[in-house]
């Protein structure tokens, strides 16, 4: 949106070099409109300068513009450099450990780093737990968030909507260690009967089969996924709410005037309008779930056994494994093993974000 208006402005500035001389000759006369759009004066004045053959070949820039431009470009460049530096750090630290690794890093699930002289570490099991917990969390949180966001924007009375939205936002402010405690002390034990029921009745489905830890322990993917769902709920809700709120009034009234009920109106206007935003909000939530550490550190029961690709597997996610291994960081090579795992997590969240952006971009083009 803002890109196109900027392009329009600079294009119109280029089109009118002739008229641009007037403001240059009489600076006070026609600056009224320029104040509101700081980028327009630059173009015309610079063309006027060169057109009149004045010695100043560099465009005239006001100090304020220069300072602002400098800080903006600096801030933009800083974040790019920062991300590149993080990536580079991870890569450089991981390479020696990866060289010393005696098993395939991407193909093995073994994690044995106690002896720095015979390192064995593979990402496979960690990757499964990471992806399983996050995807489960997303699957649980997405419909609930959609419901909350629609309720807040189109169903709740205005007096209720504001405080309610505030409460949902507050959920995002709860520290993750609290979620972890709640998950392992309260939610986990409550979920055990559910888990046992699922295992008993749907055990033939691999996802509900016996995992690599005891179901009664509750420290499994299911508990972790539910806790993560609660944690990412406010993020998805907040962004979706913003998008749904912006549904053009004309579309809403158009649907209602055709005799749409409230739900039909929401289905024909609000949801199509907000779909892209909702998807990217969900990806944002997924990104957060993938990187969550402390809560899962508390919840997941550790095990050396290979996961059975079940909801009742224990183990560790990439992030919680790194936290668990903090005691081994005194050795460069061992630390490198964990850093290599971190690199995978970094790449994974990066890929999720890129995917989200691609989805949103494609939706915009087709709309």
């Amino acid at each position, binding site marked *: 949106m803002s890109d196109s208006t900027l392009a329009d402005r600079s294009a119109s500035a280029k089109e009118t070099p002739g008229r641009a001389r007037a403001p240059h000759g009489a600076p006070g006369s026609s600056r009224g409109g320029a104040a509101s759009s700081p980028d327009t004066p630059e173009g015309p004045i610079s063309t006027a300068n060169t057109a009149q053959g004045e010695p100043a070949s560099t465009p005239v820039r006001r100090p304020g513009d220069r300072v602002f431009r400098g800080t903006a470009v600096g801030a933009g460049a800083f974040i790019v450099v920062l991300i590149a530096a993080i990536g580079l750090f991870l890569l450089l630290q991981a390479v020696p450990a990866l060289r010393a690794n005696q098993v395939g890093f991407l193909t093995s699930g073994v994690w044995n780093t106690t002896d720095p002289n015979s390192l064995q570490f593979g990402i496979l099991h960690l990757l499964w737990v990471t992806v399983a917990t996050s995807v489960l969390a997303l699957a649980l949180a997405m419909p609930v968030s959609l419901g909350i966001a629609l309720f807040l924007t189109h169903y709740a009375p*205005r007096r209720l909507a504001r405080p309610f939205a505030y409460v949902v936002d507050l959920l995002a402010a709860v520290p993750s260690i609290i979620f972890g405690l709640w998950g392992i002390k309260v939610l986990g034990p409550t979920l055990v009967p559910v888990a046992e029921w699922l295992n008993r009745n749907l055990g033939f489905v691999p996802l509900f089969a016996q995992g690599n830890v005891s179901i009664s322990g509750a420290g499994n993917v299911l508990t972790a996924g539910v806790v993560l769902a609660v944690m990412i709920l406010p993020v998805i809700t907040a962004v979706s709410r913003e998008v749904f709120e912006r549904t*053009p009034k*004309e*579309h*809403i*009234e*158009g*649907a*209602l*005037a*055709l*005799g*749409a*009920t409230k739900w*039909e109106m929401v289905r*024909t*206007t609000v949801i*199509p*309008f907000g779909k892209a935003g909702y998807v990217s909000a969900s990806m944002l939530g997924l990104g957060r779930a993938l990187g969550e550490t402390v809560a899962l550190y508390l919840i997941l029961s550790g095990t050396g056994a290979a996961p059975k690709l079940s909801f009742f597997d224990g183990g560790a996610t990439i992030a919680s494994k790194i936290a668990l291994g903090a005691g081994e960081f005194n050795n460069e090579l061992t630390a490198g093993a964990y850093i290599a795992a971190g690199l995978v997590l970094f790449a994974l969240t990066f890929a999720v974000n890129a995917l989200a952006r691609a989805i949103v971009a494609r939706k915009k083009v087709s*709309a």
Partner: protein
Amino acid sequence: MAKRIDIKDVNIYYGKFHAVDSVTLSVPPRSVTAFIGPSGCGKSTVLRSLNRMHEVTPGARVEGQVLLDGEDIYAATVDPVEVRRTIGMVFQRPNPFPTMSIRDNVVAGLKLAGVKNRRRLDEVCERSLRGANLWEEVKDRLDKPGGGLSGGQQQRLCIARAIAVQPDVLLMDEPCSALDPISTLAIEDLITELKQDYTIVIVTHNMQQAARVSDQTAFFNLAGVGQPGRLVEVDDTEKIFSNPSQKATEDYISGRFG
């Protein structure tokens, strides 16, 4: 089809604000009635009260009766959704659903009403687009999104969408104010055709337009700043524009104010 509307002593409020004071007027079937008047005089509000669209605005309420062939659309047993299915509306800004194709836009109302038969939908689509004088222009791209049409075409698409459900009444809220003169002319011709089958009420700021398309004209005005809008007079369009009985009407149409 084409029902008569009787508005009886209608008062409209937004919360505590009294927006429209005691309007009484009748719209005969198969005719065009134009609402004219300065901005903020309540003519759009009255129009929106005819299909209960004002209820979209929180706090808005109507007192009095709006009778559709003798049946009060504000009776306790009447569902506003049903009212809007029989009274179509065209808005100031063309508002086709941007994610839907032209075809889906036209038949959106039918789909809401539960019609699923593909052949019937296609028939209605063609008939409505022909009715809105748009068929020839879009028949080769019915599957393209409605947002890709020009403003005037979009507005005719919206008219096609409104008449696809064969409403009893068609309400138009300044349907040409966002359009160029040629598109405006196309819509005005269309209104003249549509009145053979529909009862039409149109709000317009363009007095020539009211004079051109309507059989009956109602002039609304404000009694004063902060006062509710009211109906000054309603009469045959010819009479309103040649020899109105109220001085305020004459002042307005001759451009002495507003």
